[in-house]
C-alpha cells in the first residue's frame, strides 16, 4: 500500500518482476538519479525483526537487496516495510518515528508496505510487534541515513559535522545558519548505499518533535473518499471472478461431482484440478449462480464432536504440558493453605470475522506471478504460492494493499494460493473473494480452551498456593505476576492446534492465549477476594509488588472512582489486570444484569495502560477503544457452534459481534512512561474484557460465570441455580 492520490494506479500497474541486479534494484527504488538507500545487514537476525515461534511456515530467505528507506533527489523519504496496515495505524506511527530520527517534516515521509519485491523480508504483522521490534531497527536505519547526510553536508558546506545541525530536511551551520543545504541538494546526483552494521546513537525521547504527538492517520483521507485500495478492489483486464466448491463440513471428502449444469452456462469456465473445483466468470454474481448449479456429493466425517463436548475431548487428548513459570513448592503451599479453591474455566471457539473476507487477485505473466492479497504475512504467502505453482520464489511477488481487518486471522491466506492456482489454470487474472460463509468456515478460530486452577489462601487471606494448567490456549498470559510463594503454571498444547486436537483450524486471535488466561486468572483472584471479604482491588494490591501493575491499577481506580467494598456489592463493578506484549493493563467496568433474561449491559469501561513510550498517543487510545469494544464480543456473545465438522454460525445473523447499541462509556488512560521503550499497542486492553465483565456480573448479581462467552442464556442458567 502506498499513500497518496495514485495509490490504486501504482498498485495495479507496478507488476514487473523481482529485481535480480543491484542496478535493477536501484532503478526500482527510483534513485538512479541520486539518493540514499539504507539496507538491512543480511544475516543479522535481529534486523529481520522475527519472532521466535512458528518457524517452518514462514522460513523465508532474505534477498540480497533489501532497503529500509530511501531519500530521493527531491528530499522525500520513503520507508519500505514488509509490515502491513490492517487498521492498527502503523502507517502513521512508523512514519512518525522516521520523521523524528531523520529530522524531516512528517508529510515528507512516504510509506511502501507489504510488497515483497520492494520491502525487506518480514515474518508477518501480528503480536503487537511492529513498534517494539521493527521500530528500533527502522530508527537505526534512519540514524544511519542521517549520519550519511551529515557527512555529505560537512563536505558540501566545508564545515565539520560537529558544527552542523539538521531540521526539517535542511542541514545548517549552528554558528552561521545562512550556511545551509537541503537533503534534496545533497542527494542530487549522488547514490549512497549503506548497510546498518553498528548501532548508531538514537535520539532521546526529549528531542522528539513528531513522536509522542497525536497525528491524524496517514490513510484517513483515502479511507473516507473510497480511494483506499483493498485486495478485492484491484481490477485487471480480462479478470475472472472465481467461486470455489466447498465441502459442507470439515473433514468431508468429495464423492461425486457433476459440473454439467455450470458448464452449460454462457461464458462460465469450470476448472477442476485435484482438490480444487471452481467456476469462473467475468461477473462474481454469475460465478455464484454457476456454483449453485454444481452437484457434489460428499462423505461426511463420523466425528461426534460438537461445541458442548469439545472441552472433555480437549482434556482427554491434551499433550503433556510444559512449565511456563514456577516458584516455591506446591506441597508447601498446600500445607500452608487454610482454604482451597478449585475451578475450571472454559472458552469456546471465536472467529476473527474481519469485515473484509479473505481476498486475492492473481495474475501470471511470462512465468511470473503477481498476487494482491489481504494477508498479514506477504512473505509467507509468497513461498506458499511459489511451492504450489512450482515457481522459483523470486518469480512470485505478493503485494498486501490495505487490509479490511486481520486480528490474526489473515496470518493464513489460502485464498491467495487459490487465486494463483486458478490464474495458472485459466491463463487469465483471477479474483478470489471468500463469501462470508467461507470466511467463517475456513477461519483459523481462537481455540476452545480449558484452564484449571487450584489455589489456596492461608489464615490471613494471603494466597499461598497457585497450581495452574491451561489447555490449548497457549502460555501467553499464563505467567504469574502476583506474588505467590508457591506456584506453578503449566501450558498443554498451543493455540495453533495440531491436527487431531481440534476439528478445524485454529490460530492466533488478537492477543492469542492471553484473553483465555486472563479470564481464568482474574476470575479466580476475584473468587478468593470474595471469600476473604476483601475488596478485590485491595486483594490484588496485597499480592503485587510489581510497580507497573500497581500503577496501572491505581490509575484505573482513580479514573473510575473505585470505592472499596466487599463483593458481591450489588453495584456491578469489576476489575481485572494483565500483561500483553510488554504492556500493562488494568481495566474496570460497570455492568447491569437483567435478572429475568440474563442479559448484560456494560455501562462503563475504564482502562489504564502502561505501554512505555507512546509513539502516537491518539492512535494508541484508538487501539485501546477498539480492543475494549471488540472484547465485548468474546466476553458476551461470540462463539462458533458446530457439530460433526459442520459450522453453524456462517454470518452475522447468528454470530453476534459488538454493535453501536452495545457501546459503554469508554475512558482510557495512558500512564506516562516516555523514558521506557515502546511496547505493544494493538492488543493489550482486549485481554481483560472477559474477566472484568465476569467479575462485574458477579458483583452485580452474585453469580460466577466459568465459560466464555457469558451469553444471556448462560447467565440465566447460573441465576436459576442460585
Amino acid at each position, binding site marked *: 500500500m502506498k499513500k497518496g492520490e495514485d495509490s490504486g494506479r501504482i498498485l495495479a500497474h507496478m507488476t514487473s518482476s523481482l529485481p535480480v541486479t543491484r542496478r535493477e534494484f536501484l532503478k526500482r527504488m527510483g534513485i538512479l538519479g541520486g539518493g540514499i538507500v539504507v539496507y538491512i545487514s543480511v544475516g543479522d537476525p535481529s534486523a529481520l525483526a522475527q519472532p521466535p515461534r512458528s518457524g517452518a511456515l514462514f522460513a523465508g530467505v532474505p534477498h540480497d537487496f533489501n532497503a529500509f528507506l530511501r531519500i530521493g533527489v527531491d528530499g522525500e523519504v520513503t520507508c519500505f516495510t514488509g509490515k502491513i496496515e*490492517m*487498521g*492498527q*495505524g502503523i502507517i502513521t506511527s512508523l512514519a512518525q518515528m522516521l520523521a523524528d530520527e531523520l529530522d524531516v517534516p512528517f508529510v515528507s515521509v512516504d510509506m511502501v508496505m507489504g510488497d515483497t519485491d520492494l520491502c525487506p523480508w518480514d515474518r508477518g504483522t501480528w503480536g503487537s510487534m511492529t513498534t517494539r521490534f521493527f521500530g528500533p531497527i527502522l530508527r537505526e536505519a534512519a540514524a544511519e541515513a542521517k549520519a550519511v547526510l551529515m557527512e555529505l553536508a560537512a563536505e558540501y558546506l566545508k564545515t565539520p559535522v560537529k558544527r552542523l545541525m539538521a531540521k526539517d530536511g535542511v542541514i545548517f551551520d549552528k554558528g552561521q545558519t545562512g550556511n545551509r543545504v537541503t537533503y534534496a541538494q545533497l542527494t542530487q546526483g549522488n547514490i549512497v548505499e549503506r548497510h546498518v552494521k553498528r548501532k548508531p546513537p538514537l535520539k532521546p525521547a526529549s528531542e522528539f518533535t513528531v513522536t509522542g504527538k497525536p497525528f*491524524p*492517520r496517514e*490513510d*484517513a*483521507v*483515502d*479511507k*473516507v*473518499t*473510497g*480511494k*483506499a*485500495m*483493498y485486495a*478485492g*478492489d484491484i*481490477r485487471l483486464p480480462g479478470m475472472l*471472478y472465481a467461486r470455489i466448491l466447498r465441502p459442507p463440513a470439515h473433514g468431508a471428502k468429495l464423492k461425486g461431482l457433476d459440473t454439467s449444469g455450470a458448464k452449460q452456462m454462457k461464458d462460465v469456465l469450470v476448472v477442476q484440478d485435484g482438490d480444487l473445483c471452481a467456476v469462473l466468470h*467475468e*461477473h*462474481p*454474481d454469475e460465478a455464484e449462480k454457476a456454483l449453485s448449479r454444481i452437484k457434489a456429493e460428499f462423505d461426511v466425517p463420523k466425528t461426534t464432536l460438537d461445541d458442548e463436548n469439545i472441552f472433555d475431548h480437549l482434556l482427554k487428548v491434551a499433550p503433556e504440558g510444559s512449565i511456563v513459570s514456577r516458584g516455591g513448592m506446591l506441597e508447601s503451599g498446600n500445607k500452608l493453605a487454610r482454604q482451597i479453591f478449585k475451578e475450571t474455566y472454559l472458552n469456546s471457539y471465536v472467529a476473527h*470475522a*474481519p*469485515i*473484509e*473476507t479473505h481476498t486475492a487477485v492473481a495474475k501470471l505473466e511470462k512465468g511470473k506471478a503477481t498476487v494482491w492479497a489481504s494477508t498479514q504475512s506477504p512473505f509467507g504467502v509468497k513461498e506458499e504460492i511459489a511451492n504450489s505453482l512450482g515457481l522459483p520464489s523470486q518469480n512470485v511477488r505478493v503485494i498486501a494493499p*490495505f*487490509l*479490511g*481487518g*486481520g*486480528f490474526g486471522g489473515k496470518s493464513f491466506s489460502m485464498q491467495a494460493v487459490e487465486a494463483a492456482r486458478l490464474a495458472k489454470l485459466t491463463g487469465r487474472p483471477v479474483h478470489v*473473494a471468500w*463469501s*462470508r460463509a467461507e470466511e467463517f468456515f475456513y477461519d483459523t478460530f481462537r481455540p476452545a480452551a480449558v484452564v484449571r486452577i487450584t489455589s489456596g489462601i492461608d489464615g490471613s487471606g494471603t494466597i499461598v498456593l497457585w497450581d495452574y494448567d491451561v489447555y490449548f490456549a497457549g502460555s501467553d498470559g499464563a505467567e504469574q505476576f502476583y506474588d505467590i510463594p508457591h506456584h506453578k503454571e503449566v501450558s498443554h498444547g498451543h493455540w495453533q492446534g495440531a491436527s487431531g486436537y481440534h476439528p478445524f483450524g485454529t490460530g492466533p486471535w488478537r492477543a492469542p492465549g492471553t484473553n483465555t488466561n486472563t479470564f481464568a486468572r482474574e476470575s479466580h483472584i476475584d473468587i478468593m477476594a470474595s471469600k476473604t471479604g476483601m475488596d478485590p482491588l485491595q486483594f490484588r494490591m496485597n499480592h503485587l509488588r510489581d510497580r507497573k501493575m500497581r500503577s496501572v491499577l491505581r490509575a484505573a481506580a482513580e479514573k473510575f472512582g473505585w470505592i472499596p467494598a466487599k463483593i458481591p456489592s450489588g453495584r456491578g463493578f469489576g476489575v481485572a489486570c494483565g500483561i500483553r506484549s510488554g504492556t500493562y493493563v488494568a481495566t474496570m467496568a460497570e455492568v447491569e444484569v437483567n435478572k429475568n433474561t440474563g442479559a448484560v449491559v456494560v455501562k462503563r469501561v475504564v482502562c489504564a495502560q502502561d505501554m512505555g513510550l507512546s509513539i502516537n498517543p*491518539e*492512535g494508541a487510545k*484508538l487501539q485501546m*477503544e*477498539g*480492543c*475494549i*469494544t*471488540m472484547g465485548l464480543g468474546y466476553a458476551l456473545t461470540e462463539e462458533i457452534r458446530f457439530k460433526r465438522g459442520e459450522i453453524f454460525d456462517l*454470518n*452475522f*445473523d447468528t454470530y453476534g*459481534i*459488538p*454493535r*453501536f*447499541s452495545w*457501546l459503554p462509556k*469508554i475512558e482510557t488512560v495512558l500512564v506516562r512512561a516516555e523514558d521506557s521503550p515502546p511496547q505493544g499497542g494493538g492488543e493489550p486492553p482486549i485481554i481483560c474484557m472477559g474477566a472484568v465483565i465476569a467479575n462485574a456480573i458477579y458483583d452485580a448479581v452474585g453469580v460466577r460465570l466459568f465459560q466464555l462467552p457469558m451469553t444471556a442464556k448462560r447467565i440465566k442458567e447460573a441465576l436459576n441455580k442460585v
Partner: protein
Amino acid sequence: MEESIHFKLNDKPVNMTVDGQRMLLWVLRTDLGVTGPKYGCGEGLCGACTVLLDNEAVLSCQTPVRELNGKEVITIEGLAQNGKLHPLQKAFIKHDALQCGFCTSGMILKAYSLLRGNPQPTREEIIQGMDENLCRCGSHIRIVEAIQTAARELKGGHEI
C-alpha cells in the same frame, strides 16, 4: 433478463443493458468499476455495501439494479463536491473514526442518510440509526462523535 437501465451515478448519467435482477453492489464494483461500496456479508447484515439511492441509504447487495431506473445513486466516491470533502468525511478524519477503513464508506453514507432525516440527532438516535452497520475494529465511539460533529457543521455551526 437483460433490460435497459438508466440512472445517475455520482452526478453522471449511466445507461446500461443488464440483467435487472443483478444486485447493485456487483454492478457497481465490476461493470462500473466503482469499488467504494464493499462486500462484507452478502445478506444485508453488515452495511459495508451501503450506498445512497435518492439520498436514502440502501444496502447495495440487496438492491436489484432494476430499482434504479430514473433514480440517483451516490457512492462514497461521489460524496465530496468539487474536491471539497463533505462535513462527515472531515469529521471522520478529525475524530480518527476509522481503523481498517473497510466499513467506513458504508458508515459515512448511512450517517448521511440519518442526518438528512434527522439533522440534530441525539447520541441515542445516532446509536440507534447506525446499529445495523458493523465495525470489527471497534471504532464505534469515534464514529458517533464524528456524526455529532458533522451534524453541528451541517446545521451551519462552526467549521470542523
